[in-house]
């Protein structure tokens, strides 16, 4: 099966959840069902399958397949953790909107279509996030975010278009350098890299916290993947000629890694700390844009996968902490890990999944990105700088192991519990039994919110650690070719060789599905 059913499931599910938002419980359940459907659709994708829409292919590469499956699972887990704070339906809808953008972006060989898909997913996720706030919404923060994502898309689109007329010629390195800088800065803006991070600083206060992972990690990772595939073509061939531009991007990356870690460390609000930790990791992703060597593409893609999954788990932890203890102010969370060991274990796994361990594919990918982008003593400095984020994780962990504070002591229990009695056991008649069943369900949920959110967070953390360990075929999927590399995925009319060449719409107006012969060269193992 192609990636089309997945995209349709995400689209239909998101629309349905938004339509049902006046009934939050029903909308949440529909959202979870849609995410389960998306997971199923993702699992049924045949690696390398192609579907043509209007003559243009959507190629389900192993990397795209793995990413949509893993992020769908993460979306489901975010929806579960968010339910404790009352925003489960909105989070599910936002995740589905983002999944549509991510799936489309990773499957299309046309970089501009991919850029627009990421923008569409970002705008939709931000718009859905607005639905979640019925009080005084932070309109300025959301508007600033919309401006940032639109500007990033516009700059990236123009950057890609600049070099299009130069294909088949010997391009001027100044022009290609300008295009490269535009695309790289667009990715940096999208990741809220320092000093382009102002728009994201209040994002967590304006939209539900789980959607911050979607806006700051998932969608920028998809954009970065599109950019990397594009850079492997016209820019990589003249890499020595873009020295100044690469130096600028490198400076941006290093500033983000270092200052992002410092900013995260000094935050007392765990939501803000989470955002800055995401930004700090994005600095490593920016290093991938400096390499301009197709040989480094596999490590870059794997890092992007790890970033999306580990930061989702971190956000899930922050959401669960707030839902469990009623606060996200770190000084008030003393003893949180002692009160909720499940959250403590999840947090430790997230830290492990972020930094990696000796011999882990994730750490190898981080170090390769550093070694390929920086030389000499600076490389060792950057390697040490990558560990700076441990200071933030350590600070949060130390608070968690401290004496039980009032918030932690009064927090929800993370152990499953049964209601003292079941209304269903004494109900008679169909209507009474239905009412009793609803009451029992509500009682079970009220008693086990803490357990559900802690459990979902733990699963997200385990998934992130598994990805970091190279499970689920991550490294091989990342090493596969991009959507434009398949010989059957020839580009359509988006880049004609000359202005006089007419557009060639496909003979079939509807989508056609093709399984590429032999599949992709590096088909990942099925999860």
């Amino acid at each position, binding site marked *: 099966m192609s990636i089309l059913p997945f995209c349709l499931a995400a689209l239909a599910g998101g629309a349905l959840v938004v339509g049902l938002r006046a009934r939050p419980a029903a909308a949440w359940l529909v959202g979870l069902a849609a995410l389960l459907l998306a997971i199923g659709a993702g699992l049924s994708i045949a690696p390398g399958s192609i579907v043509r*829409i209007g*003559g243009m292919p959507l190629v389900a590469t192993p990397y795209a397949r793995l990413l949509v499956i893993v992020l769908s699972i993460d979306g489901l887990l975010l929806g579960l953790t968010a339910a404790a704070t009352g925003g489960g339906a909105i989070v599910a809808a936002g995740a589905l909107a983002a999944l549509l953008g991510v799936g489309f972006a990773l499957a*299309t060989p046309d970089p501009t279509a991919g850029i*627009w898909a990421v923008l*569409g997913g970002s705008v939709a996720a931000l718009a859905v996030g*607005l639905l979640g706030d019925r009080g005084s919404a932070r309109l300025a923060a959301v508007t600033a975010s*919309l401006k940032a994502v639109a500007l990033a898309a*516009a700059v990236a689109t123009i950057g890609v278009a600049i070099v*299009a007329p130069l294909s088949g010629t010997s391009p001027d390195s100044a022009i290609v350098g300008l295009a490269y800088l535009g695309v790289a800065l667009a990715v940096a803006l999208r990741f809220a890299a320092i000093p382009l991070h102002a728009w994201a600083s209040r994002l967590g206060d304006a939209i539900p916290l789980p959607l911050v992972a979607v806006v700051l990690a998932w969608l920028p990772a998809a954009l970065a993947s599109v950019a990397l595939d594009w850079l492997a073509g016209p820019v990589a061939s003249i890499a020595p000629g873009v020295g100044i531009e690469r130096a600028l991007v490198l400076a941006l990356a290093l500033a983000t890694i270092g200052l992002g870690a410092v900013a995260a460390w000094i935050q007392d609000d765990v939501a803000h700390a989470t955002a800055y930790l995401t930004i700090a990791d994005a600095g490593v992703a920016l290093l991938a844009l400096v390499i301009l060597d197709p040989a480094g593409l596999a490590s870059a893609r794997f890092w992007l996968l790890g970033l999306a999954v580990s930061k989702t788990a971190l956000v899930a932890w922050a959401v669960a902490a707030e839902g469990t203890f009623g606060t996200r102010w770190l000084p008030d969370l003393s003893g949180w890990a002692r009160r909720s060991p499940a959250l403590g274990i999840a947090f430790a796994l997230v830290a492990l999944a972020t930094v990696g361990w000796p011999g882990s594919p994730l750490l190898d990918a981080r170090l390769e990105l550093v070694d390929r982008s920086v030389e000499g003593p600076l490389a060792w400095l950057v390697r040490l700088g990558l560990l700076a984020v441990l200071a933030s994780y350590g600070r949060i962990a130390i608070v968690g192991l401290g004496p039980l504070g009032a918030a932690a002591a009064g927090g929800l229990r993370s152990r499953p519990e049964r209601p003292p009695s079941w209304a269903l056991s004494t109900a008679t008649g169909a209507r009474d039994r239905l009412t009793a069943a609803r009451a029992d369900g509500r009682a079970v949920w009220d008693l086990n919110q803490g357990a559900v959110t802690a459990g979902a967070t733990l699963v997200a953390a385990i998934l992130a650690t598994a990805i970091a360990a190279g499970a689920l075929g991550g490294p091989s999927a990342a090493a596969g070719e991009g959507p434009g590399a398949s010989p059957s995925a020839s580009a359509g009319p988006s880049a004609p060789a000359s202005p006089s060449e007419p557009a060639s719409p496909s003979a079939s107006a509807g989508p056609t599905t093709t399984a590429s012969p032999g599949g992709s060269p590096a088909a990942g193992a099925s999860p």
Partner: protein
Amino acid sequence: MSPWLVALAVVVVTGGVLSVSARDGKLATVGLLAVLALAPLVASPLPDVVAASARVVAAALATYLVGIPLRSAPPTRGSRIGWPAEALAASAGFVAGVTVGGFGAPGLGPAAGVGAGLALIALAVAPLAETRDLLRQGLGLFLLVTGAELVRSGLAGTPSALEALALAGVVVALGAAVALLATRSVATTGDLEIPRAERPER
């Protein structure tokens, strides 16, 4: 360069000037509709019928969504610099785009597209720099995205059907986002300006 394409590009830019300078929200949405519906046609060769239709439908839907909260909103301040200055800025962008046409090689699409794109981006600068008027900021977003699309089609050729589909989704999503922002603002403060307590410090 086809005179029809140039004329179409001029109409698109005129729609942009109208959208950013009109105080009446309805007039602004008329200008917006002209921009969103006609911009895809400033291409050579023309996009296929299905792609163009999708874009027109998306434009109509987005404009309709943006128009919903405007029914109960008071007129906005409109352009701070006035429509003549906006028109001059747009003209400068248009002439620059048509003159440049491409970087290092002629563009694969019409130079009028590059001109119209730069004109719309020039028009988008002031609204996007705005921090209070939500409608103008929303219009700025539309102009920025459409401007980038026009520059892209002028440099790299007609967008594919898949790209047109993605753009249609972007336009509808932007329409929904702007409509939600405007609705929330009108419900909170009675007008389209971000509440004073929320405005970012300059």
